């Protein structure tokens, strides 16, 4: 347990003391939110649009964008540990692989927590409040952390498989593709283009967005929340298992 804490502490300190990792992951999504919500506010005039404020609709996007930045940070950190040989030295210790990965991802979860609190504060300050009430904040932060863990796990997996930070950064556009091809800009039932609607329906990011969105717009929507947690949780579980397997392969090669 003390080993995990040590790794977790190292991971948190290492992530949070890099302003270049923390600041853009909060400022950039908020800047885009500000531009989008003003630029697309007239979209709320579309029949069937769920709210009359585009800000209220779009506030879910920064949570996902923040998680995507976290994925890149997680990948870059793990890749840097591989490049510096730190991971090889850890392989000589009796640490379990799952423990090792969890320790490595703690810093990203800390970053995810800061992001979630910042986005919630902005949402409450400039939007129309949280329809789910104060209890919704807790669920919102939990969902946000699960999403961060999911994307962070994918970033770490890519780093473990490839072993270099440049590849992690090259994969970054693919993460953004997942966001772009979702119900990010309009509700799924208002997407006109058939193939796009199909892709958005199959895309788990749509359900993560809709889970967060439901807390801001609808209130307590069990189905939306269940789907959001199920999608994020499943991806997180698969990514962590894949990370453990990749770590075993990497350690065997060491």
């Amino acid at each position, binding site marked *: 347990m003390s080993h995990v804490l040590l790794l977790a502490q190292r991971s948190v300190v290492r992530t949070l003391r890099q302003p270049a990792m923390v600041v853009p992951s909060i400022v950039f999504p908020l800047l885009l939110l500000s531009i989008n919500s003003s*630029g697309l506010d007239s979209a709320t005039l579309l029949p069937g649009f769920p709210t009359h404020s585009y800000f209220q609709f779009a506030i879910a996007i920064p949570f996902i964008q923040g998680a995507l930045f976290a994925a890149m940070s997680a990948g870059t950190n793990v890749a840097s540990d591989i490049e510096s040989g730190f991971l090889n030295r850890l392989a000589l210790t009796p640490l379990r692989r799952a423990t090792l990965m969890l320790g490595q991802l703690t810093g990203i979860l800390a970053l995810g927590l800061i992001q979630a609190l910042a986005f919630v504060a902005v949402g409450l300050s400039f939007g129309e409040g949280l329809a789910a009430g104060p209890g919704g904040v807790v669920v919102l932060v939990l969902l946000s952390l699960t999403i961060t863990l999911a994307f962070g796990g994918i970033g770490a997996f890519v780093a473990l498989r490839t072993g270099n930070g440049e590849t992690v950064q090259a994969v970054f556009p693919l993460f953004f593709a997942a966001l772009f091809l979702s119900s990010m800009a309009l509700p799924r039932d208002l997407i006109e283009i058939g193939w796009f609607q199909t892709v958005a329906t199959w895309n788990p990011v749509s359900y993560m967005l809709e889970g967060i969105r439901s807390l801001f717009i609808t209130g307590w929507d069990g189905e939306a929340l269940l789907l959001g947690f199920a999608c994020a949780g499943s991806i997180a579980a698969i990514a962590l298992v894949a990370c453990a397997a990749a770590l075993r392969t990497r350690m065997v090669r060491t």
Partner: protein
Amino acid sequence: MSAARAVGWRNVHNWITNPALIVPSLLFPMFFFVAFAGGLSRVDSIPGFDYAAGYTTFIYGFVLLQASTFGGVFTGFSVARDFESGFARRMMLGATHRSGIIAGYWVSALVRSVTTVSVITVVALLAGLELNGGGIDLLGLYTLALLMNAFAMLFGTGVAMRLRTMQAGPLIQTPAFLILFLAPVWVPYDLLTGWVQAAASVNPMTLVLDTERGFLVGDPTKVLPAFAVVTLLVAVSLLWARGGLRSAERAA
């Protein structure tokens, strides 16, 4: 001339052979186009949306400018990388006329831009882009986009040559991002609200974007003012880039 050719070829070669450089520069504008044209297509049903050629064509006007401008921005990154690695210093020792170095970077920015715009145009045509303008309109459309590419490249080169580090990246990218996105990107100007409408009213890109969208439907508006604005931007950024070159020469 030989310096321009050598610098241009080197940068184009680096761009084409490095997946970490070419893949994002081709994929990002495509993602933007697909996400906006596909995800926001219903926006053309908003009362007051009066662009006859449809949303795919409307958004293509923006993505074209964005792709072209970011071709210049990414070239600014290459300049910064060349200075950080020390290659630019050796290049400056070897070049008889150092302004040829800037010309070389401009050639590589042009190649990037033409390649990216060609890929996006093919994707857009497959997605239902309507090019209703005639030959002159299309010439105006792409000339304006390439002038924006030159503006972004010269601006980025000026910043990179002054700072001579990759840390210059955000200073090159952020102004380009802001000038592009604080324009009527997703809906016509009249449908904008809040602070973005106020920003768009003084942003020269609003004029440029309107003209681009006019070229696309064969009904160009404010052509002379748009070209005048972009030519002025290119002229000012040329002076800025020459100043950057002088700064780099002093430091070399």
